[in-house]
Structures are given as C-alpha cells and as structure tokens.
C-alpha cells in the first residue's frame, strides 16, 4: 500500500466512524515510517474537513460528528507521540466555555470538536463557567481566542461582563472574543464589543482561522 492509499483509507474510515480501523491504519503509518505530521494533516485533519462538509450539507449531525471525532482522536493518540516539536506550527489557542448559569453545552462541544479537528489547541472550561475563569484561563495559557456560548437569554449578560473584566485589566486587546448561541446575534456582539459572532460551529472555525491569518 502506498502512502496516499493509506491516507485515503484513513480518511474513509474516519468518515465512516470506524475508530478501530483508523487506529490500526495509523499504527501502520508508523510502521511505514510516514512522518506523524503528514498523517495528521493529510489523513486525519483532511478527514474531519470532509466530516465538516457533511455536517454543513446536513448529511451528518451531532451523533455522527461525535463518532468521527472519536475516530480522529483515536488516530491522533497513536501518532501524536511521534511528532517532532518543530513539526507543528504554533496552534491557535482557544479558551472555550458555556457562560455561568447555563448548562446547555451541545453547541459548545460541537465548536470544540471542529476547532480541535482543525488543529487548534482548545482549553475547554465546560459549562456554567464562572466569568473570572474565562479571563484567568486565557491569561494562564496565553490564549489567542476566548469563545463563549449560551443558549439562554438570561445568561447572555455574562459575555459582556467578561469583556468588561478584560478591559478593566487592560488586556482586552490580547484576545479575540468570539460569541455564539441561541439568543446571540451580530447586533448583540456589536453592542458588547465582541470581535466575532458566528451562527454555527463551522463558521466559528473559519472565522478563527481568518482572524489569526491562517490558511483555511
């Protein structure tokens, strides 16, 4: 089997949600002495790009995304230890969470999965996240992005408060603030001074790459 044939197989199995097959094929890539970075970029990440497309085309939904993500992570776990430090360009760093008072996290999880799938380093604070935690984590990991989500109109205000906290500390400019969720809109984003509002997970990933000047 040639390298490209192997990559094709990995991508196909990832799209078909076959985690065990992806793991085995990634092990094979190591036996074939294929550099880990190539397997990651050409097979795993490209595979998830296809999955993203299927999601946008409304062929795949959340259950399928979760399964594909497991397959990707299974493969990643196999090859990642074999990466050279110089291989990865600095990943875009993201701090993400659902705003304090809200426990709806399905949308946030989708954004996280698609961001990780495109190579971003995501620090997931989970749900019902105290507002200070967004700020503190972003500072701690020198994040590029702060991504906040909520499904409830009663918790929206928290987003504006996080931005105010960043301003009070004089560090607002260090981060790009992304917001999303059911009650959120571009109008609201403009009102509170967020950098980006996106309607869905795929857009969030695209905008993140655009903002950070990366190839999409």
């Amino acid at each position, binding site marked *: 089997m040639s390298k490209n044939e192997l990559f094709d197989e990995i991508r196909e199995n990832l799209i078909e949600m076959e985690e065990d097959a992806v793991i085995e094929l990634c092990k094979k890539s190591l036996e074939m002495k294929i550099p880990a970075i190539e397997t990651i970029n050409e097979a795993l990440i490209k595979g998830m790009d296809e999955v993203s497309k299927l999601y946008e085309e409304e062929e795949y939904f*959340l259950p399928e995304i979760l399964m594909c993500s497991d397959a990707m992570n299974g493969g990643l776990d196999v090859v990642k230890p074999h990466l050279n430090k110089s291989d990865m360009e600095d990943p875009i760093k993201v701090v993400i969470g659902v705003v304090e008072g809200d*426990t709806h996290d399905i949308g946030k999880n989708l954004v996280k999965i698609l961001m990780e799938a495109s190579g971003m380093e995501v620090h997931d604070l989970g749900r019902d996240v105290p507002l200070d935690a967004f700020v503190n984590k972003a500072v701690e990991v020198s994040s590029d992005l702060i991504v906040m989500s909520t499904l409830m109109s009663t918790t929206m205000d928290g987003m504006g408060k996080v931005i105010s906290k960043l301003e009070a500390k004089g560090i607002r400019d260090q981060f790009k603030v992304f917001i999303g969720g059911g009650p959120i809109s571009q109008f609201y984003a403009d009102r509170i001074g967020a950098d980006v509002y996106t309607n869905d997970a795929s857009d969030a990933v695209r905008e993140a790459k655009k903002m950070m000047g990366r190839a999409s």
Partner: protein
Amino acid sequence: MSERKLLERLDHTTMKNKYTEKERLLRVLSGKLVDRPPVICPGGMMNGAVTEVIESLTENHNVDLKAMITAAKLVYDQTGFENYGVPFCMTAESEPLGIEVHFGDKYIEPRVTKYSKLPMEAVVKLEAICPQKEPRMKTVIDAIEQLANEDVPVIGNITGHMSTASSIVDPNIVFKYLLKKPDLSMEFMSYVNAYLIDYAIEMIKAGADVIAISDPTATGEILGKRIFEKYAVPFYQDFVNAIKPYGIPVIFHMCGNAKNVLESIDKAGFNALSFDSIVNMKQAKEVITTQLMGNVNTQSLNFGTLEKIEALTKVCLDSGVDIVSPACGLGMSTSIRQIKSMTQYVKEGYSHV
C-alpha cells in the same frame, strides 16, 4: 382558505367568547373550529412562572405542593395565558435514576448538576419506575388533582424520552450510542418511555385535560432525520397510542430548527405540534396535517418592545396557527407586562375577517 371554511368562520364570529377556556382548547385540539385561537403556555419546559409572577411565594414551587399549585394559579391570573400547567421544569422524570438536581429558585430553573453514576447498561436492568412512588412526580400528580376544574384547562407536562435519557446519562454518550450501540439505545429509550407513559396516565387519572411533551434534545437540528425517525418517532407513537384510550389530547413541543423532521413528527399522531421561532409557520402549515402551535419569539418577549411583541403575535395568527404560545422557554426575567401584550393581543386584537 376554501369558501366552505370561510363561511364556517363567518358563522363563528357570532359565537365569540361562547366557549370556556377549556372548551376552546379542547375543541382546537380535536380539529374543531373556534372563535379564536387560544393562547397558552403549557408548563414544564415552557412555563409562565417567571420571576415577577412567583415573587410572592415563600416555598419552592418546584418542590412544594402548595407552592406548585399557587404558582400555576398565579401564572393564569397574572399573565393572561389560558391554562394551568405543572410542573415548571424538566427534571422530575430523570430524578429517580440517581442524578443530582439543583431545585432552582425564583431566578433560575431547576437543572441537572450531575448525571447518574449508573452506566446505560445498568439503568436498563433496573426495576420500572413507579411515578406515584417518586416524590416529585407524585407532587405534580397531586397538584393536577387539586387544580382540576370546569373552566380552565389543566396541562400535565412531561419531558420526552430523548431529553430524559440524556438527563440520566451524559448526552455525549447517549448520542454516540445511538450509532455505536443501537440495541442498548433502543432498550434504554424503551425503559424510559415506559414510565413516562405511566406518568402521563397518572396525570390523566388525576384530572389533566391535556398532556404536553417537550423533547428539546430530540430536535431534528441535533439528531438529523435518520436518527429522529429511528429513535424518536416510534416512541412518540407508542406514547400517543397508550394515551389514546383515555381520550386526552397530546401536544408536542420541539425546540430549534425542526424543518428537516416536520413530516416525520407529523406521523407521530400528536394533536398539536409546537415549534420554535425559527420555524416558518406558514411553511409548516403546508406540511403538517395536525394542529399547529407557536411561536412568539422569547427573546422579543423578554427584551423587545410591546409593539414588536404584538407584531410577532400577529404574524403567528396570520400564519394560521391554531394555538398561540411562546416559541420556547421564557426567560425568567420576562416581565408580566410583556407577556400580557401577547396574550391580550390574541384575546382582543384579533379578528377573523
């Protein structure tokens, strides 16, 4: 509108306010003509117990029987919604399965704080849940019994099987298992649906006039049509068929963009389908064959102007909804004044022709 229907409606304008609120709602749910659509807020996921309404309560209306009854009456008295509805959350159904629940307060609704320690494989081996033996389900049943009356319809609210299942077991696991472990998933859904049916029957025996199910986690936006048809529709059909002998109508609410499952959910046999604000009601009306309910945007109810709320209510009515309701759960900070601009518009600002 056909000429026959137009003539029937003209006759009905002379019968304005002839019906009690209960009669009107039950007539609509059985497809009969009425003078105007009722305006309701069923309860459960979509309830009118906003902070301003329940301010005066001294006990937690999600837990205490007297407070639950009082809250239902306060909603009716103060907002103009034409029904009583209990409970005011979505956690009673999953509580018996070892989850942790925060019972909420006047500002925030109850929510699941920890999923069950039991994995799905263990849950399906448990004995069936008996609603009358579970403290909060029993409280809801008792509340319905005391609220039952001649004029105001009492709606018993139930969380659908998919949402209940994903309140017991982490939804990420539930979703994956739908694809990875289909037999176990089916077993789990069956286990849950069985006691939801028992719960509904107890509500009916206690005097509920209508049952309303909300199943937000099952929205087509999350599951897609394929999974919805396999894991959602058959269980709704079982539910409806089990309730049928009792002659009580069932309303179903779905959150999010339900466009991809409109035809599927229509097959379930519900008496009315309630949709979120993103669903175009005119378009929905072309697809579904049962009664349509909805869908005044809840952001607007909370933060919009009174004019905007009236305009949105008018759009619902002009789209031909059979029952007017909020599009989804009301924010707790929604004011009574804002809600009333919607309910009063339906009752006083609407004319057929």
